[in-house]
């Protein structure tokens, strides 16, 4: 059985590479039962969105 530490690591790696079928299925099983990791999963996507908006944002305040 996959634990939360392993699951979060895979959820991060999933942003970097396609996960294998085995990885995806044990992850799916884990997140089905684990609210914390399910939240973490959503937050990984949010984090990426936030970072990309941040990078593209223009400074909106004066420099002093």
């Amino acid at each position, binding site marked *: 059985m996959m*634990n*939360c*530490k*392993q699951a*979060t*690591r895979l959820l*991060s*790696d999933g*942003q*970097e*590479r396609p996960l294998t079928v085995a990885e995806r299925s044990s992850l799916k099983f884990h997140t089905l039962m684990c609210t*914390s*990791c399910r*939240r*973490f999963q*959503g*937050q*990984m996507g*949010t*984090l*990426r*969105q*936030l*970072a*990309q*908006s*941040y*990078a*593209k*944002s*223009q*400074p*909106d*305040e004066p420099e002093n």
Partner: protein
Amino acid sequence: MSNPSSAFDPLGSVPEQPPAALACPVFLADLREQMLKFAVLQLADRSQAEDAVQEALEGALKNSAAFQRQAALKTWVFAILKHKITDALRRRHKADQAVTAVQLDDDEADDSRFDHKGRWQRGARPARWQQPEQSMEDAHFWRTFDACLNCLPALQARLFMMREFLELSSDEICAQEAITVSNLHVVLYRARLRLRDCLENNWFSEGT
């Protein structure tokens, strides 16, 4: 093996013509802004960061004819910028603090989130984030985000920015930074854990 940029060049090369990637002011402004954020984060000094960005951009403009694609130009400009940053750090006699992949083991923080069986510790469990889309409209949120980024260890911050801001691929980053893919993934994982914690503690759980 076609080269799309040369396919539309009926008059032959026109040296006065700026390359496609640099002819777009929006692209240039965005690029400059991304570079500046990157440099400020690495140097922790606004004016040094501005100098480094300026020098990198000038260097890039001189040789820009070779770059027709924006993505290629961007990768290259950032490679120059990284050298400028390294130089600036060295001048500050901080060369020995310059981050290297050797620092991979310095972060124990991710272990404290999980118990010995690898389950979330009670206090570390992710909470529900309320309406992140709305936060993006809020200037205060971006200040928090900025502060959280600045709290990351230098190597984590740099690799995270290369990956998420510059949207470089894992392979490109590994080539530039001379680290292995698996080391990169560990560092990104740690950066994400920390950023997630910081945002949750300082923004998403406020007032709940």
